[in-house]
């Protein structure tokens, strides 16, 4: 195709600046030596990063979010792998309805899920419990994991499995020697994306989190509601750097452009 003209280059530069500006400003602000929200121009300081260590509310919420994300992503993948095998390797009545149901958390507004979970947990008496929060996170991250495993399975050739069976392999051997190696990039990438989605989720979690079960984004949201100071900028910078690290890992094992553009 033909090359981009000067207008295209200018437009693209402005677009990239627009996308990166809020992240750059947060990271720059976190290096301020001042008590006020003023961008550092003459000297940089790490004092607001040291200050995080003195605020147990952020540290506790951070570890809580990590724990929640790891367990929720693991459970979601344990549910998604067999479901993806069923959807990718079988044609059965009700298949389309299953797909619609499994992907529906992507379409339902998270605020609606939030109030539905709040009501549900209050009725069954598990408000603020870890199990409740975990269940709600498993549900909203499930479609992301499912899509990646499905993509890994649908791009592979089912003839390989038939060949293995015709050569006398048992069901278990086919799963272990053929399907599992095929699925591993999808499962690993899906786990990472599920973890990131759980770690970032705020709209639904803000309804079901209580002071004893507070995730980092919800803690940050309540903090920003009260006041914005350099401390919350340094916490945000840690979140940005951690996300970039995870993205680099995902890029190595699965290909970030494949995940973002959604092509398997």
């Amino acid at each position, binding site marked *: 195709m*033909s*090359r981009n003209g000067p207008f295209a280059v200018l*437009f693209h530069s402005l677009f990239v600046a627009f996308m990166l500006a809020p992240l750059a*400003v947060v990271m720059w602000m976190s290096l301020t030596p001042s008590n006020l929200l003023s961008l550092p121009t003459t000297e940089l300081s790490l004092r607001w990063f040291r200050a995080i260590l003195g605020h147990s509310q952020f540290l506790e919420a951070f570890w809580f979010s990590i724990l929640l994300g790891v367990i929720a992503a693991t459970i979601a993948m344990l549910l998604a792998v*067999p479901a993806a095998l069923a959807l990718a390797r*079988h044609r059965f009545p009700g298949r389309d309805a299953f797909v619609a149901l499994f992907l529906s958390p992507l379409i339902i507004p998270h605020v609606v899920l939030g109030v539905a979970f709040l009501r549900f947990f209050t009725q069954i008496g598990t408000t603020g419990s870890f199990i409740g929060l975990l269940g709600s996170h498993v549900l909203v991250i499930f479609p992301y994991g499912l899509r990646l495993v499905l993509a890994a399975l649908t791009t592979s050739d089912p003839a390989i499995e038939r060949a293995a069976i015709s050569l006398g392999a048992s069901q278990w051997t086919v799963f272990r020697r053929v399907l599992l190696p095929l699925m591993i990039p999808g499962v690993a990438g899906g786990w990472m994306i599920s973890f990131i989605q759980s770690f970032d989720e705020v709209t639904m979690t803000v309804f079901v989190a209580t002071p004893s079960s507070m995730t980092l984004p919800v803690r940050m949201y309540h903090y*920003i509601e009260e006041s914005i100071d350099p401390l919350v900028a340094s916490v945000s910078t840690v979140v940005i750097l951690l996300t970039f690290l995870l993205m680099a890992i995902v890029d190595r094992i699965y290909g970030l452009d494949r995940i973002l553009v959604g092509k398997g």
Partner: protein
Amino acid sequence: MADATRRRAPYLLSLPALLIFAALLLVPLAMIVGLSFQAYDLNTGRIEGLTLGNYADTLGDSYYHGIFLRTLGIALATTLVCILIGAPEAYFLSRMKAPWRSIFLIVTLSPLLISVVVRTLGWALLFGRNGVINQVLAALGLASGPIPMLYTVHGVIIALVHVAVPFMVISVWASLQRLDPRVIRAAQSLGASEFTIFRRIVLPQVAPGILSGSLIVFALAASAFATPAIIGGRQLKVVATATYDEFLGTLNWPLGAAVAVVLLIVNATIMLTYNRIVERRYSRFAQ
């Protein structure tokens, strides 16, 4: 026997996920619909009896009218801006050379994976009265006084565009990938101008991508919570923040449930109608 096992296999494999979805999606959604039909006593705070009053309040009250209209306006404006900047960006990206294309694709799309709270904080820092944008404008002598952006509708729209535009880029990008470069070369060899190629070949091909991108962007913008809450503040309510207030502020749960159900139905209706139009009009382009 083997045949029966094979027929049962997909259901058994999906069963764990199905059970979770039944218990944690269908039951809570049914409960919230049920709750929306229950009466709430403002004096005692008790929930009892069946009523349509919550829907009458939601749909008839001018306070909620204003909130629904504002949400609709913000979502439409966000969608429009996303089309205007996201579609050309996807087009320019697709015309880039090999290493740059995937580098910039990741650069433009990766903010998608960073928490909405963090990204909105960035906009709050940029927008404030003494925020970065106003300081730069003042230093350059471009503005006589601070331009209000925090707690304004246009501030919310800008921040929502940032959150939602990657989805427009993805969607248009996907439809551009199906564009056959040979058709463009044929048009060039027949003497078509750049503009004619864009209008007669590229645009009709990416239209379904723009439409499906708009769908995602609209749904996201109409139900966004953290961005309007932080940038819009307490005064500038949208449906999601109003629902939050009913549930965790005034504690009128049945009314909050009715607002949430209306949001769900409006969102689902718009998406399904839109989807049907897109499918009917562009079925020959859709994969």
